[in-house]
């Protein structure tokens, strides 16, 4: 065959067309495969894959989710890669999840503003509401998102008019700081004054009675009792030494509030101003306190005792004064008197539950007027505890429980013989064997 220049051009053109077609087919295949989005998760118990509940929830959310991750590399490894690995499946399921990394060592102000205390902590923001997440678990993240979305529109209503701590107030015994934290997390707040307003609907509201200093009128007490009787949720901070004519309410929910104060001599040793400040380090087994890691401070607290016959299930939340006692007499130069006083630990906060026709009624009683007031909210873990209580009270029935993914490969117990076989076999014998084989072949070929 004669090769002419025309033939060459023909071949060139043909080659060009072939290359273009090949490229087009390749790009098409890659593009189509990219659309399929099928990914098999081969790990044990599909560890990388989100549960159906989570996926359904993410589908439900229209608003974008902004996540700020406070992470930096430390002795345990690169936290940034841990965080991005944790968040990748969520980003794959919902395209408008934006993740932004902040190194708290470089921008300490942003981290402090966000209240970050742990490497790897996430700040999740939806619809201008935000909350921090310390653990990297699917259940915690999902429930946090549910809380931020506030699918149920329940309102926390603070009673005022009897010298109660006011959700809008800035005084030392008011609750303005707590209200600020609640609003940031999507809670709706309101106040109730019996002089001007009627009783809220029990199904839609959590009533907050923050230690009235003057007595309620009998009619007002009756309205509160009716609210609770009809299944309303209640958060009650009890004033020391008086109940503001609410003893009937205590009877109704099946608790006793003996007069007196908790004394904790250990507290004074720890630098607190007096023995009337009690430190709580032990928490009951309850959804409110299961995540509590830090201690909490209970100033001027009183004891809560379950009454013998109650419709409500009583669960102690906080126990204080392990070395102290409950003093029923005068607190000046008080000493423990086994006849009238009760030895610690003393329960100063409790949760109560009762099943009504439609739902589970929830009540929390705190034996301190000041623990969550502006003055002490920022002490130790007090604000975490307060938020835990309100989260539970505004009880999102939608909160889901996702079992942690099980793993098979958490234990390794190698005998010394096995270790030595692995180390010597793989690190010494095999590589040396390959080198020797190569050397032998080279030597034989040289001789041949």
């Amino acid at each position, binding site marked *: 065959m004669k090769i002419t220049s025309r033939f060459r051009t023909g*071949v060139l053109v043909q*080659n060009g067309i*072939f*290359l273009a077609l*090949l*490229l087009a087919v*390749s790009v098409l*295949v*890659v593009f*189509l*495969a*990219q659309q*399929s*989005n*099928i*990914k*098999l*998760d*081969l*790990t*044990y118990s599909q*560890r*990388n894959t989100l549960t159906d509940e989570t996926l359904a929830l993410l589908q439900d959310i229209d608003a974008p989710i902004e996540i700020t991750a406070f992470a930096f590399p430390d002795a345990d490894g690169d936290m940034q890669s841990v965080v991005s*690995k*944790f968040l990748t499946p969520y*980003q794959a399921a919902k395209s408008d999840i934006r993740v932004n990394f902040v190194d708290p060592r470089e921008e300490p102000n942003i981290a402090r503003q966000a209240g970050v205390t742990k490497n790897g902590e996430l700040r999740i923001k939806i619809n201008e509401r935000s909350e921090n997440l310390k*653990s*990297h*678990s699917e259940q915690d993240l999902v429930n946090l998102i549910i809380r931020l979305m506030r699918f149920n529109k329940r309102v926390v209503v603070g009673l005022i008019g009897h010298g109660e701590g006011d959700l809008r107030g800035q005084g030392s015994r008011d609750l303005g700081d707590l209200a600020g934290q609640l609003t940031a997390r999507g809670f709706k707040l309101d106040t109730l004054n019996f002089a001007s307003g009627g009783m809220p609907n029990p199904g839609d509201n959590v009533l907050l009675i923050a230690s009235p200093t003057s007595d309620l009128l009998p009619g007002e007490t009756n309205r509160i009792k009716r609210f609770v009787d009809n299944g309303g949720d209640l958060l009650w901070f009890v004033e020391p030494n008086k109940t503001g004519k609410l003893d009937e309410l205590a009877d109704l929910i099946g608790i006793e509030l003996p007069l007196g104060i908790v004394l904790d001599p250990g507290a004074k040793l720890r630098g607190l101003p007096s023995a009337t400040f009690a430190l709580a380090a032990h928490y009951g087994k309850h959804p409110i306190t299961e995540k509590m890691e830090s201690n909490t401070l209970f100033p001027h607290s009183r004891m809560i005792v379950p009454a013998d016959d109650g419709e409500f299930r009583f669960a102690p939340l906080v126990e204080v004064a392990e070395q102290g006692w409950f003093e029923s007499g005068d607190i000046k130069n008080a000493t423990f008197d086994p006849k009238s006083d009760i030895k610690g630990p003393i329960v100063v906060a409790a949760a109560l539950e009762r099943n009504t026709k439609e739902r589970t009624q929830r009540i929390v009683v705190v034996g301190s007027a000041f623990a969550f007031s502006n003055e002490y909210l920022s002490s130790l873990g007090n604000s975490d505890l307060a938020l835990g209580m309100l989260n539970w009270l505004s009880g999102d029935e939608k909160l889901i429980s996702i079992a*942690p*993914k099980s*793993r*098979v*490969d*958490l*234990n*390794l*117990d*190698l*005998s010394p013989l*096995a270790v030595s*076989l*692995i*180390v010597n*076999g*793989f*690190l010494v014998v*095999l*590589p*040396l*064997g*390959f*080198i020797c*084989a*190569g*050397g032998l*072949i*080279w030597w034989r*070929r040289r001789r041949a």
Partner: protein
Amino acid sequence: MIFTIAHKELKSMFSSPLAWVVLAFVQGVIAYVFIGSLNGFLIAQAQLARTPNAAGLTEIAIVPMFGVGQMLLLMSIPLLTMRLISEEKRNQTMAFLISAPISMTQIIVGKFLAMATFLFLILLLIACMALSVTAGGTIDSGLLIANLIGLFLLGISFAAIGIYISCLTTHPVVAAILSLAVFLGLWIINLASSNPESWLNVVSLLKRFEGFMNGFVGIADVAYFLVITCFFLVLSIRRLDSERLRA
């Protein structure tokens, strides 16, 4: 016929010391990483058991082998593919192959199969190391399988690119340097594509391998590796065909 070529190619590969040295080097480095991370797991074991959502034995001791394995493939595959075609040209044996009653497709696929067998051997060594810990515990075998699949796909893509570059020149050393340069370029793409939305992630071979390292076998990723492999094999066949025409 393809298998005859693959067999001949493997024989010549293992009758030169190079393949053995590569094998020894790869085994030594991977074993070193494996034993180091195994030791790390043994030390951290008690603490990990208490941490929720902690990484397990497979992730801590076995997956790092694949992390270093991809870099070792990146460095060693050019050494193995460099002489596949270019040496035939240099030794003037290409003329025999071309005039033999076999198609260019058979030559290229045969040589590619030889490379794939060599890769399989390396994966076998890694799998043996991974399975050795079952003497004292269980491993997440699914995660191991995903990693093996991923590294094999990455390896054959590298091999196909290496074979094509070997077709382009008559000097094996030039082929090796060129392949290494291309692979390093691919690696740099991976470093540059830190933004998850970047189009570089779609292109980057190593980025796609990361999914396998986490236990995912994605259709898109498998397809991408296979397309890259086929693309360069077809180009190689075309190249040899057009050379035969010219000869």
